[in-house]
Each structure stands twice: as C-alpha cells, then as structure tokens.
C-alpha cells in the first residue's frame, strides 16, 4: 500500500522553508495572544507547544490541490489546542477574521474545542482519547477504497493516559494503516501537573508506541526542519508516530512549562510582556 500512501513522498514538499515557517508561527502566536485578551480561557499554552507541528501539518504535510484544498485530513485530537488550528485556517482563508473575532462569543461558531461542521474542522474533539479512533476509521476506509488520502492526527501526551488511545493505536497497526500519521505534542504537562511526575514509569514513550506496531521517530517539536526530516525519512508500511518534544507555552517565558497556563488567558500586563518577548523561534 505504500504506493498510494506515504511512498508517494514526492507529493510532499521536498524542501520545507524553515524561515517562512518561523515567521508564520510567530504571527500565529501573536494572533492567539490578541484573541486571548477577549476571553478568560484560551488554552494558549497547549496551542503554543503544538504550533510548529500544526503549521507543518497544514503547510508541509497536507498535499494541496491547485485551488488550495486538500483531500488529506487533519484531526486535532487534543481539541483544546484548536486555537493553533483556527489561526492557521484563518490565514488560509478557510475561516474568516470575523469567525475568530467572535471566538467563544454569542453569534460566533468557534468554541474552545473544534466542532465538526465548521469549515476546516473534520471532527469534533475536546474530550481526550477520541481523535485516534476517528482517524483510524477514516484511514481504514481510505485505504480500503484505494483512495490516495493521508490522515494526520495530533494527540497530546495526556491522551496517552486514555485507554482508548491505545485501543485504537493497536487497531491501526492491525489494519496496516500506513496512511495514518500521528503527531504527539509531547509537552510533558497536563492540567494539574507534569506528566513525568504523575506517570514517572511511563517513560520512555517511544518504545511503547513501537511495541504497538507503529514506526516512531522523536524530534524537537519546535524545529520545523527536524520535523520535516523525520517525516521524510519514514520507512513506511506501518502507521507512523512523530513524537515532538515541545515546551508548553513555548515563546513566552513566563508561560513556559507552567501548568496554570494550560487554561487561563494572560492579563493586560502579561499580554504586553508576552508580545514584547515574542520573537522568532529558531528551534
């Protein structure tokens, strides 16, 4: 099946413009911070840890038709990071500026978690441990039909505590889904603590993923070119998981690795400081 799936690497941009990705990610973070000033809760930190990987999914992995559309699918299983997705969809004109301005407001259609039916959103997520099953079902149908489509699913390390994630990862390998790519935003942090403290015996993650029949690579999840290289060097023939080691709140010093920023929005003063600090991230 590699012919119809990842064997078709030529369809994925061979050269990925890292500088352009850095510029975009900085702009995306700024936009998220701007929106944070309109609402009390934003999950900005989780969006910041996922930013480079989500950017790479949209701008590097998803193969585009001439009109900009794609038959490939992206599911944000860690739904609370959908802000990273919204700002990219806005940049791609899939969502409008008004959509984002009305984020979490009456009359708007974007909430704290992605809803199926909103343009660019291919599945409803928010409750953790659901996205992998949806992705496996989609990838299985695509593969069975011989459709040349890839399914990308981003999960959080917190989701690896959900049994359903492993149930469905097990099935992905059993179904030989070489058209499925998981991206793990491994920021080591969840709502109420650090995962290394809550689950110290769980590490290293990579061998667990491989034990379930997946190919797995581990990179700095903020380094676009490292992400690109890892994906391009994939052997194929199995589902593939990219572990991106990331920093929660990446880009704003006082947000980095502080669990409190899982949920809350910065105050006006914090916002000003964050914007000042925010600079291009060179991995």
């Amino acid at each position: 099946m590699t012919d119809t799936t990842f064997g078709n690497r030529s369809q994925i941009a061979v050269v990925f413009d890292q500088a352009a990705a850095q510029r975009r990610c900085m702009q995306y973070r700024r936009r998220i911070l701007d929106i944070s000033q309109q609402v009390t809760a934003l999950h900005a930190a989780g969006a910041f840890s996922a930013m480079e990987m989500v950017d790479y999914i949209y701008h590097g992995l998803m193969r585009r038709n001439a009109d900009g559309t794609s038959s490939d699918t992206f599911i944000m299983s860690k739904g609370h990071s959908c802000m990273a997705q919204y700002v990219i969809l806005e940049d791609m004109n899939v969502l409008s500026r008004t959509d984002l301005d009305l984020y979490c407001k009456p009359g708007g259609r974007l909430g704290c978690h992605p809803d199926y039916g909103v343009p660019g959103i291919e599945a409803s997520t928010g409750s953790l441990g659901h996205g992998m099953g949806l992705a496996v079902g989609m990838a299985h149908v695509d593969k069975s039909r011989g459709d040349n489509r890839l399914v990308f699913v981003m999960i959080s390390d917190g989701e690896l505590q959900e049994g359903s994630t492993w149930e469905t990862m097990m099935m992905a390998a059993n179904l030989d889904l070489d058209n499925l790519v998981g991206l793990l935003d491994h920021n080591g942090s969840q709502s109420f603590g650090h995962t290394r403290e809550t689950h110290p015996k769980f590490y290293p993650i990579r061998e667990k993923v491989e034990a379930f029949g997946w190919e797995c690579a581990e990179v700095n999840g903020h380094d676009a070119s490292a992400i690109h290289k890892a994906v391009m060097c994939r052997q194929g023939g199995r589902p593939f998981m990219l572990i991106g080691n990331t920093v929660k709140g990446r880009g704003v010093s006082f947000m980095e690795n502080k669990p409190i920023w899982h949920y809350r929005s910065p105050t006006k003063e914090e916002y000003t400081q964050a914007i000042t600090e925010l600079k291009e991230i060179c991995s």
Partner: protein
Amino acid sequence: MRNRFAEVIYEIGCKDDRICALVADISPAGSMVKFREDFPKRFINCGVAEQAMIGIAAGMALRGMRPFCYTIATFSLYRPFEMVRVDLCYQNLPVTVIGMGAGVIYSTLGGTHHTMEDVAVASAIPNMTVLAPCDPEEMSLATRWCATESAGPVYMRLGKAGEPDLTANAIEPFQVGKVRYLKKGSDIALLSYGINVAMAFDIAKQLEANGNSVSVLSCHTIKPLDKEGVRQVLASHDRVAVVEEHVPHGGLGSRVKEIAWDMGARCRLDCFSLKDEFIHFYGNHEELLNVHGLSVPAICTQLLEQK
C-alpha cells in the same frame, strides 16, 4: 434475532458497499461469517475494545460509510458510552449500535451482563434514535431502515435467539416512529417493545379468557416516541399497561406516564418493569424475570383486580 440480523446485514451489504460491521470479540454467528469472508474490508473485529469499535465506526461514518457496531448490549452502550455520546451523537453520524441480549436475558451471567437501563441511557442523548423490534421480521425491517434511511445514530436493542414470529398477522405495518397495533381490542391495551411483546401476547390471552378485549402494541421506536399514537391508545382504552424489561425510570413506562399526565388521560395505567435493583439470583431468564415481578400470572392478577 441474532441469526436473522446477520442474514439481513449480509443481504444489504451485498448491494450497498457503505454497510460495514464492527464487532467486539463476539463470535460471529451464521451469515456474519459470510459477511466477514465476502467483505473483509468492511468487517472489523476490534477485539475486547468497545471504545475502539465505536470510535473507528465514527471515523468510517465520517468517510460516508454506514457502520453497524455489534456486541452484547452492556458492552456496546455502557462501556463506550462517551464515544457513543460524542463521536456518534454529537457529530450526528449514521452509525447503528446493536445491543444484543438486552434486558436480563443473560440471566445466569449475572449483573455484569444485564442491560437493565439502556433505554433510559440511550434515550437521554440528543440525536439518538432508540429502536427495539419485537421479532425477527420487525428486526429485519428496522435494520433495513438503519442501513438505508436513518440520518443519525441509532441504538437498537435486540434479544438473543429463538424469538417467535409475532407480527405475521399484525394489523398495522412497521413504520419507524409509530406505535404499531399487532392486535386491536377495546378494553385493555398492552404497550411493550422488544422481546417483551411475546409476554404481552401471553398476558392478552389470559385477559381475553377473562372476557376482556385486548390490544397489543409494539412500541418498537422508543425514541422518538409516537406521542400522538400513545395518546390515542390512552384515550381509547379503559386500562393501559406498559410491560418492559427495563428499570422503572427512563423507559417506556415513564414516557407513557408523561404523555398521560400531559393529556389528562382518564384510563387506568399500570407499568410493569424490572425492579430498581441488582438482584443476585441465578436461574433462567424467566425465573429471573419472575423475581423482578415480571411474570404473566403476576401481571394478569394485577390487571384483573377491580379498578
């Protein structure tokens, strides 16, 4: 019902390549084996992983498939409940969850395998349709409806095997969303669904022997319930009884009482159900129902008492 279900799924699956079956480690009976052999890509045994079964089915539905998820009721609905709620109902996807052997059919397997509150649980979720056909023929029609017409998720409560044919002489056709008169009388109406309709017929026989004219209805669509149909039943009989193998709250009995209150029904209304208890009794299905108070003699005695 189990074997007939497999036959129907196979038959529909031959014509419609959107039909797929996902099971959770349940021994595929009869034609289900044929389905698996003839359509291997449309048959997935997820193993003992019910959350995976529902989640993957949802993903397949998002790609235009019309999956059926099949296992013992308690495992198809309770274990993966949040997948049913979020993946299927919140996204409103045309996936049918089959709850096999619902009620206390698996009597001696004990409370872990009894499904006594599924109608309440499934009915509580927005977008969900709840069906409980009473015999193999109704099941077959209901399955066809799920396969071709339903626009969203369905929970279908089934029996096990060996259910008698109860609808060959039905005086009304099967139509999803409508209560169905299987036999029409004028004094007492018995409302039931699923495997308990057979019990309703036995009750009717005894009531008739005592000089009553009895209606028996299959309320195969519990959600959305045919309110107008129920209103007419309540208005046109002196006595109405609901018989269901389900806890007292949240099932058909509760719904009929709501309707009766709203319309100011004048008839006498009795609801017979399982007790709101986990009963640690080991015997066959009928014996366990008896301990719950669901037996033909007990129900007849109460119905024949003076009003």
